[in-house]
């Protein structure tokens, strides 16, 4: 067996002080298998050692929260005895190294987190961030990631209904692939991971174990260097067909009373799943690694324990139910093996070829993982930009430029490669403010969105953290759904750098405040740190996945203008905030300035108003105002009409025209209101103490403002044209 030298320790990503702690826990030197187990259990990816202290400050409770962070996914009550289970998770590092498989297995992993709790997955979303479009790798990464997400999700038969895609040079060496799954379960049939019942069999099901993905969790916990692509062997290979069978087999077995506990094998594979189940149940496990179904010959205990082969689950079964369980997995042609028994020793004892190859105390490993209070410095405050210091250009021209810029161009090329309709419940397809998916067999629906504006978070992590939560709240409200809870996926650079740690601390503080004030608790999440290449960090990107509920799916608003001659009503106040805006970046070529502040009490009132108006049927169309500002929002509503309904806007004289058109003031919505409803809408807004003013009329085939006009069909061509043209070059080059 290999000797444990300082080099071996360092190559496992274990710091000298951490090794000292290992010696204390064991009272002896670990062997190589044990060292490998420590390294993955204590990796940043599995232990959250840099972020734990701050994550604890997030609000996680509400009367409708059934299960908050700590399990495989969060669980919320949606009434009628049903629960929605959801989580978002990153697969950033693998996707950069091998985009197709990295993204595909990201989807597979998050699906397992959700169905392991007893839910049938009903929707997938993906928040993607790529480098500068002109970077030589970007096109290849976009093509691979999109194909991988589609390849997995389409086959598994879960609709991919939404998400977001951004481009920025800071992601050149570290793209982000954040995958979210939402599932539906019966409230009284939710499955947890805590092992119970000494002597109960520990069962392995799903795919066989191979040598793939060994040390994936450790890789995800280090910065990239130039030779990172040599880490390709640490990326796993996905098999969506097996995942589909695993979903059906698990759900079939879950309908019986056979399962005591269940946990998917994700990062750190058999190691983290077995340790987590045992630790949560306060028990030990004796495991015979010879019984693990293996794909390759001659695998060592080290390889078996650290493999990240996909599509595998670990379960504890009730005694006497082994045959029933095996019959289900036989039907679905999946491996089923009893690999161990629960003990009361509190220790993980592993045998290979009859010999004990590891004997580790469970709690010290699972619970006593290092927790750091890393030093941090608050980010420097940026100055507020006055609109009169920003170049004013023709609004019609600026609108056309913005709609064709990489961050605002239509994502149709992406979502048309995803089956977004399978399962027959997709009520709002991609392209709106939030996806709306009917709760199968009912008149209810869940609304789902993913949001964050990384340029705001960079400019001011606290405001940016608040804004990410507020925008998710707004997108759900804009379709008429009551926002219920969020999952977060915190993507940052190297936490050992105080300025990066400052971004993490401040963004979490902002998110926490917004979640508290909006009654929008965090029920699950994931942290991805060390997103740096050669010392350059990504924009801080705390992605928020929001879930809301529509009691009556027929009362949902869409963004498309419905008829000519209706009033266009702007909800919320406009000061013309251009700092950190897309206008500033794309038109004026600057990325400076403080980001727009979020007033949470006003955000909440505006959301309540908009939901009320949609539920009462007083709104023909609704769209939140975000990237690009008011004129972009109005243009998107016109384009969504198919291009046959334009808009004529009357800008006020109190705000500079370019700031009114493109300022990114928060807390705003654009409503299309029929004439019969207008007085009622304005009255309702006054009752909610929320600003509402008529800013124009729908009609015509142009968007006109300040004496200038942009034809909607030209805007559609610009907006739809960019991404296919950009990716078309990929095809021509291959």
């Amino acid at each position, binding site marked *: 067996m290999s000797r444990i030298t300082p080099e071996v320790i360092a190559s496992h990503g274990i710091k000298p002080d951490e090794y000292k702690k290992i010696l204390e826990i064991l009272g002896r030197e670990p062997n190589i298998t044990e060292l490998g187990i420590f390294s993955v259990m204590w990796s940043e990816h599995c232990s959250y050692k840099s972020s734990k202290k701050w994550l604890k400050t997030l609000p996680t409770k509400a009367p409708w929260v059934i299960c908050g962070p700590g399990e495989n996914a969060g669980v919320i009550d949606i009434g009628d005895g049903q629960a929605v289970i959801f989580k978002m998770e990153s697969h950033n590092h693998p996707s950069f190294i091998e985009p197709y498989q990295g993204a595909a297995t990201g989807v597979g992993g998050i699906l397992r987190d959700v169905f392991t709790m007893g839910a049938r997955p009903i929707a997938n979303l993906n928040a993607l961030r790529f480098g500068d479009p002109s970077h030589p790798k970007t096109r290849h990464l976009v093509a691979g990631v999109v194909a991988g997400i589609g390849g997995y999700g389409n086959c598994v038969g879960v609709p991919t209904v939404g998400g977001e895609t951004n481009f920025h040079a800071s992601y050149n060496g570290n793209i982000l692939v954040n995958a979210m799954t939402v599932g539906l379960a019966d409230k009284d049939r939710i499955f947890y991971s805590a092992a119970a019942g000494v002597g109960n069999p520990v069962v392995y099901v799903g795919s066989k174990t191979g040598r793939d993905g060994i040390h994936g969790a450790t890789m995800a916990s280090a910065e990239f260097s130039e030779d990172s692509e040599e880490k390709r062997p640490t990326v796993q290979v996905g098999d969506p067909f097996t995942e*589909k069978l695993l979903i059906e087999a698990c759900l079939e077995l879950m309908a019986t009373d056979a399962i005591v506990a269940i946990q998917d094998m994700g990062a750190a594979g058999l190691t983290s799943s077995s340790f987590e189940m045992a630790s949560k149940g306060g028990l030990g496990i004796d495991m015979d690694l010879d019984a693990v179904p293996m794909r390759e010959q001659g695998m060592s205990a080290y390889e078996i324990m650290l493999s990240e082969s996909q599509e595998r689950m670990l379960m504890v079964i009730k005694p006497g139910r082994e045959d029933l369980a095996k019959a289900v997995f036989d039907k679905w042609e999946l491996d089923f093996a009893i690999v161990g028994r629960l003990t009361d020793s509190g220790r993980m004892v592993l045998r290979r070829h009859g010999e004990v190859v590891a004997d580790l105390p469970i709690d010290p490993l699972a619970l006593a993982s290092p927790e750091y209070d890393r030093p941090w410095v608050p980010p420097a405050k940026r100055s507020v930009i006055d609109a009169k210091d920003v170049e004013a250009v023709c609004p019609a021209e600026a609108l056309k430029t913005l709609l064709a810029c990489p961050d605002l161009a239509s994502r149709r090329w992406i979502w048309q490669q995803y089956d977004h309709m399978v399962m027959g419940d997709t009520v709002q397809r991609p392209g709106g403010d939030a996806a709306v998916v009917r709760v199968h067999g009912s008149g209810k629906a869940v609304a789902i969105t993913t949001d964050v504006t990384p340029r705001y978070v960079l400019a001011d992590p606290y405001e940016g953290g608040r804004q990410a939560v507020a925008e998710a709240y707004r997108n759900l409200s804009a379709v008429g759904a009551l926002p219920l809870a969020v999952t977060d996926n915190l993507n940052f650079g190297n936490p050992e750098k105080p300025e990066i740690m400052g971004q993490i601390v401040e963004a979490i503080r902002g998110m926490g405040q917004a979640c508290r004030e909006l009654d929008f608790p965090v029920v699950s999440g994931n942290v991805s740190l060390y997103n740096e290449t050669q010392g350059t960090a990504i924009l801080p990107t705390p992605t928020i996945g929001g879930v809301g509920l529509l009691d009556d799916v027929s009362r949902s608003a869409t963004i498309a203008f419905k008829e000519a001659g209706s009033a266009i009503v702007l909800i919320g106040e406009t000061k013309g905030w251009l700092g950190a805006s897309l206008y500033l970046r794309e038109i004026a070529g600057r990325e400076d300035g403080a980001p727009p502040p979020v007033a949470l009490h006003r955000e909440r009132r505006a959301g309540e108003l908009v939901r009320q108006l949609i539920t009462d049927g007083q709104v023909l169309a609704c769209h939140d105002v975000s990237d690009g500002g008011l004129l972009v929002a109005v243009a998107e509503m016109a384009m969504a009409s198919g291009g046959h309904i334009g808009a004529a806007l009357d800008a006020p004289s109190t705000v500079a025209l370019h700031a009114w058109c493109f300022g990114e003031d928060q807390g705003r919505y654009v409503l299309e209101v029929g004439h019969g409803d207008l007085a009622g809408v304005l009255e309702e807004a006054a009752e909610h103490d929320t600003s509402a003013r008529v800013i124009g009329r729908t009609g015509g085939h142009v968007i006109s403002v300040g004496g200038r006009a942009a034809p909607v069909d030209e805007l559609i061509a610009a907006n739809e044209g960019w991404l296919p043209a950009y990716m078309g070059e990929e095809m021509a080059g291959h």
Partner: protein
Amino acid sequence: MKAAVIVFPGSNCDRDVAVALAASMGTKPHMVWHRDTQLPDLDLIVVPGGFSYGDYLRCGAMAAHSPIMREVKARAERGTRVLGICNGFQILTESGLLPGVLMRNKDLKFICRDVCLRVESGDTDFCRKYAAGEVVRFPIAHAEGNYFADAETVKAIEGNGQVAFRYCSPAGEVSVAANPNGSLGNIAGIYNDEKTVLGLMPHPERLAEDLLGGSDGKAMFESLVEALS
């Protein structure tokens, strides 16, 4: 009407088509597992969409040799109506119940979107509630829907009126621009020569309810119920 939906490992539109059938039939169809070798008394067999056996080989090639397909073929030969949608269409061509093959889409990508189809004939059990020449909107969701057959076969199916649907513009024009996947003659769906077996790439079951954005697909299930009840 008595109907069954065949379920292969990897089928993923089995529930969707069962829901659409139940809405038109008033009762639920039988769900038949791929390893079964017997079918109950039936008027209609549906081979649904999905990725049967993962489709890691040529799409539908494995499913065509599954135990249940022997019985499906025997029933089809005796005149039981068979409807294959998407992967189901691929399985029917691989089984020899329908002529031709479905190749990789011309731009090599999976495509999921609504398309317009021209109904070529309104006098079959599948389409009697449509009019010939009518334009309907169904979604497609496939990577291998590019229909191809040799010249002799094409001549035969065209001559015999076996083309069921063609991709077209909203105005009904059958053009290259309206062809999403490169199919020969814009063919989206075909019948066998007795018009008792229909295979099509688009999914009628996905737009069979106004809440989901349209209900053009519903008339196909209503046609079958009317013809076979």
